[in-house]
């Protein structure tokens, strides 16, 4: 008896996408001078035409943000600022379905994830930070409660709306105004967010959205009117930005790449561990900075876990992101797909053993089957470099110390996972691991109250919780 799930597509009709968009500056829509296409990576259809922000556009946005900071936003009490953020949170909840469908169309991620993870977490970030706006003196992050002024924020394409929430919510709560550039391939939910700002009655110029590419981002980074930069993206670009601002007074926080180690001890709860491994690398197509992309298995259960993992991977449903039963969606762009192909080819060449379940991939769009490589060693490219796709590299260890050594042997330090039923072992491992976020017997859990950020080349600073607030206040230590 075969239980085939009939197509269960979420309707697109809830979303209205304009054929062309401008920038959102000073509370109004401003026409762009040139445009580029934004496509649906699952079908390659053109969704809309997005404005390419120029230095002049960035300049206008920064001026609007400065004006809003001086004239309105900094004049408001924390209590009143907070109420704007509560409004934004509520409106996002009200328009949740619209945001989820739009995010899936623009990014390629399954509707189940945008509906159940991205959108609710984004609203939650605004709700959480709204409550900080009038409590900064209690946040205990130093003696200052003064905002920087105008902050420039550049966000990636993997969680477009959520990354916007992670940036804008604390910035506004602490009294800053914002110039934000969404990623080139995923601007649409940011532009819908501009509508939410209007519906919430947010004073003009407090949030400005300038779309564009790397040149637009550079214009923001280099603009003298920006007091602080917050960037999430690749480590390479992060270093470029850090160099660019090193001689300035600009404050900078970075959220960069990772090569997270997911460590499985022999005494782990096996079935939940397999779920955690799958979630760790295949959630969001592996386009996750904190993905558990290196599975470090204790040798004494390696065979059992791998067999169960492969059997579980057979059940991963790859396909139309708008189908409510899809588990793995499209790769975000042709460029990213090429990178994944390059690195997995290196895995083959370097002698690791590749395995994927049989899954039919659609003809149009950008797709990659969920893949594991076994027989991986630390020296392999696929063990060192961030693939940012649904590809898991599997290594083994014999003793706990060896596991920690392998886990820490990387220039990255964003995340790690530990699977064990022994509490003291978990706590011991968390002590040894050099990672900013450690998940024990779970993975990819996020909450606005939980600080997130990396050690070493995974970045500077934290986002979320009390720790995340300090970046947006002047003179704080971190």
């Amino acid at each position, binding site marked *: 008896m075969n239980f085939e799930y009939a197509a269960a597509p979420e309707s697109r009709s809830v979303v209205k996408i304009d054929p062309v968009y401008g920038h959102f500056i000073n509370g109004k829509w401003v026409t762009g001078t040139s445009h580029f296409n934004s496509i649906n990576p699952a079908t390659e259809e053109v969704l809309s035409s997005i404005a390419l922000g120029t230095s002049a556009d960035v300049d206008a946005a920064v001026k609007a943000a400065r004006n809003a900071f001086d004239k309105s936003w900094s004049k408001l009490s924390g209590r009143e600022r907070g109420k704007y953020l509560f409004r934004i949170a509520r409106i996002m909840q009200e328009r949740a379905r619209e945001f989820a469908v739009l995010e899936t169309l623009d990014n390629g991620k399954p509707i189940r994830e945008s509906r159940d993870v991205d959108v609710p977490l984004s609203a939650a970030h605004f709700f*959480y930070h709204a409550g900080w706006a009038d409590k900064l003196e*209690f946040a205990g992050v130093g003696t200052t409660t003064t905002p920087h002024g105008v902050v420039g924020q550049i966000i990636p394409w993997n969680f477009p709306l959520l990354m916007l929430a992670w940036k804008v919510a604390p910035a506004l709560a602490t009294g800053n105004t914002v110039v934000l550039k969404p990623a080139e391939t995923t601007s649409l939910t940011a532009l819908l967010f501009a509508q939410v700002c209007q519906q919430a009655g947010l004073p003009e110029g407090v949030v400005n959205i300038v779309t564009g590419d790397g040149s637009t981002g550079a214009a923001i980074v280099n603009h003298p009117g920006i007091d602080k930069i917050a960037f999430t993206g690749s480590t390479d670009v992060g270093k470029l930005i850090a160099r660019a601002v090193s001689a300035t007074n600009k404050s900078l926080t970075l959220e960069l790449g990772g090569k997270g180690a997911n460590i499985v001890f022999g005494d782990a709860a096996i079935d939940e561990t397999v779920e955690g491994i799958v979630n760790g690398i295949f959630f969001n197509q592996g386009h996750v900075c904190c993905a558990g992309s290196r599975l470090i298995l204790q040798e004494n259960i390696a065979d059992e876990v791998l067999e169960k993992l492969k059997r579980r991977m057979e059940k991963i449903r790859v396909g139309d992101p708008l189908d409510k039963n899809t588990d793995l969606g499209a790769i975000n762009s042709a460029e990213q797909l090429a990178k994944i192909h390059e690195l997995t080819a290196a895995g083959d060449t370097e002698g690791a053993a590749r395995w994927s379940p049989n899954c039919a991939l659609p003809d149009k769009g950008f797709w990659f089957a969920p893949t594991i490589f076994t027989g991986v060693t630390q020296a392999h490219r696929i063990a060192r470099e961030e693939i940012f796709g649904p590809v898991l590299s599997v290594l083994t260890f014999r003793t706990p110390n060896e596991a920690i050594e392998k886990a820490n042997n990387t220039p990255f330090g964003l995340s790690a996972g530990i699977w064990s039923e022994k509490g003291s072992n978990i706590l011991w491992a968390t002590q040894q691991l050099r990672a900013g976020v450690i998940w024990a017997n779970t993975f990819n859990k996020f909450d606005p109250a939980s600080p997130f950020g990396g050690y070493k080349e995974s970045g500077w600073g934290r986002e979320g919780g*009390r720790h995340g607030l300090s970046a947006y206040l002047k003179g704080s230590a971190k």
Partner: protein
Amino acid sequence: MSGRLEVMKTYKLYINGAFPRTESGRSYEIKSHSGEFLANACLASRKDLRDAVVAARAAQPGWAKATAYNRGQIIYRIAEMLEGRADQFAQEISLQTGATAKESLQEVSEAVDLLVWYAGWSDKLPSLAGATNPVSGPFYNFTVPEALGVVGVIAPIEKPLFGFVAAIAPILVSGNTAIALASSSAPLSAISFAEVVATSDLPNGVLNILSGQQSELAPWFASHMDIDGLDISGLAVDQHGTIKEAGVENLKRISSFAQTAEPGRILAFMEAKTVWHPIGN
């Protein structure tokens, strides 16, 4: 006066999400500031208090187990609902206290904002009041604040709405449940507040509201062995000693507060739990 006769509101108690009359059948007159008859409020008895405590106790574990985010959202919704009824509450305040319309609306706005302020504490206070403690030894040691349980409130007399909100919001936000005794002479705001609560997704029994005489009921609040804490800010200072003494039997946590917006009001009705776990493999 126009030709139409108004339908007068019946002011009842609010227990376990329902609006019963007092089991004692008693009532007392509420007069306006200028001496006119306003309503017959229920004169709650110790048995009503007893029933409210049973409801509050039953509701407490579920309320404490709700996520902080969820509790914060519900308290924010109470603010939403109160905002929507600003005129109704302002009118009631003016009738009871003689305040001008402007002053009364001001009090309602302050009450709404105070609810919003407290709502924002639910998912933040543990990050501040909790800690990991650097003990000498291979142990992971952490302290978490936890809700106390069932808390009684003797609501203040001045500012019948704002004072009431200032008392109950900090109690509820951390996961406690409450029984509040409205101000004896001006109970209407507190009783009407039940309408706001009933439309806010607050689970039944989390907040219970009684109207009656402080002098009759305060001793019963104090002696009840299944009430864990008391806010006696609304009790005359010369009564504090007697009430505190009566509360000693089960070591109630009894406090009165001068400030309305203070995280200390939340912490006063919380416990601190410290946990040790070895680190090693």
